[in-house]
């Protein structure tokens, strides 16, 4: 059985050690890559695109379990109510892993068939305080997930894929809950100590730099979806924040379409 540091990780293009911590352990079924470009990135109309997406998403959800669990272990003095929300997130993300595994295998996929990325864990667990971690994991990555899933629900509905619509709708409801508790924690922390806003800004800058290093401009600019304003409002974002996110998404899409 492989240990933490023995699983297969690509050596192409080492990532900045200041931005990325160690990878979480994976067993011998999985091959970890460091950058998006090394993954199986099928074109939009390829029949395997959605199958590979299920596998990739399953592993991203596993990163979600790992990040929430790591934060629960690392910050024992956090308010119990917040720890309960993080513990709940562990179980939700674990359920999401099983949801994506089930649909992946039911449609012919085999575990480990495609490479995986563990950048979410490597970026987030590398941050030294809970505020920074929740800002990046829940308020940034998971909030982006709310937007992405809204788009994916519409696409699945157009294809008449009700099984996938049901899965995405459940995932989205869970993610809204995760973003909401993080937003409440972040607001409360900044209310008590306004200087904490600086940590928020620093964490977002670090995560954004690290994300770009993994994904490259090509992957980021290809993002086709806009902002799920209703979902973000339910998740505790202010109206001005939601509008700013929408403006940013429109600009990003216009920039991609003009190329």
């Amino acid at each position, binding site marked *: *059985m*492989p*240990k*933490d540091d023995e*699983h297969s990780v690509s050596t192409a293009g080492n990532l900045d050690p200041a931005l990325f911590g160690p990878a*979480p*352990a*994976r*067993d011998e*079924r*999985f091959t970890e890559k460091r950058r998006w470009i090394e993954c199986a990135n099928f074109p939009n109309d390829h029949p395997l695109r959605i199958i590979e997406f299920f596998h990739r998403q399953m592993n991203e959800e*596993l990163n979600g*379990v*790992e990040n*929430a*669990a*790591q934060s*629960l*272990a690392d910050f*024992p003095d956090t308010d*119990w109510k917040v*720890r*309960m929300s993080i*513990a*709940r997130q*562990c*179980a939700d*993300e*674990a*359920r999401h*892993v*099983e949801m994506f595994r089930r649909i992946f295998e039911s449609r012919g996929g085999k*575990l480990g068939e495609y490479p995986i990325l563990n950048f979410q*864990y490597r970026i987030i*667990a590398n941050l030294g305080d809970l505020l920074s971690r929740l800002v990046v994991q829940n308020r940034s990555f998971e909030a982006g997930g709310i937007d992405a899933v809204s788009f994916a629900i519409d696409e699945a509905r157009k294809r008449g894929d009700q099984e996938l619509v049901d899965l995405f709708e459940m995932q989205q409801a869970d993610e809204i809950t995760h973003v909401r508790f993080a937003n409440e924690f972040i607001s409360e922390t900044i209310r008590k100590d306004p200087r904490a806003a600086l940590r928020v800004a620093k964490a977002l800058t670090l995560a954004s730099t690290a994300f770009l290093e993994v994904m490259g401009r090509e992957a980021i600019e290809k993002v086709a979806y806009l902002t799920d304003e209703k979902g973000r409002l339910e998740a505790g974002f202010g109206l001005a924040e939601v509008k700013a996110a929408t403006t940013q998404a429109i600009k990003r899409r216009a920039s991609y379409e003009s190329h």
Partner: protein
Amino acid sequence: MSLSVQERAEYVATFRFIQVFLMETLARWVPPTPEMEVKVLFGRHIWDLAQQADALGRRGYELRAPLQFSLRPAESYVEVLEEFARTNTTPQKIHGFYDVILPGLAARYRNYLERTDRLLDEPTVRVVEKILGEFNRMIGESEALRKELSQLRLTDKDWPAGLAKREASEANIVVRRSSAAVA
């Protein structure tokens, strides 16, 4: 001999300490455990353990202790837990947690149910009985996973017995405090 309200609060707060410790142990194990299915099992059970701790923490408040109050158990028992938390291999984590530590804690819960007055202390009885039912489910889920993944089988068959002996060596894990220390 029946238990006083303070003694019940001390038991409940001690149980809560253990529940939180076990939740943190599973949480700490998730990233370095290689098998995806085991991470998923731990992830689900972290939430179970948190809810159980929460129920005990609310019951402790009703027994006139602070809300979500924990009391550190007898040091010899804490040492067993801490040593077990440093377990490295997945089979030992699984077998130790689900075959020894949870059943050991269940035995302590059952012992409490035998000692307390089930009418006077009915709210605690309900909390503890619910936890015992959930422990059975959690243990069952771990057994199902072990049937699915043969690599989770333990090679050292004597290891759980050694852990069980250490776990059971301290019969009374509740450390008595003055009433001021509990309230």
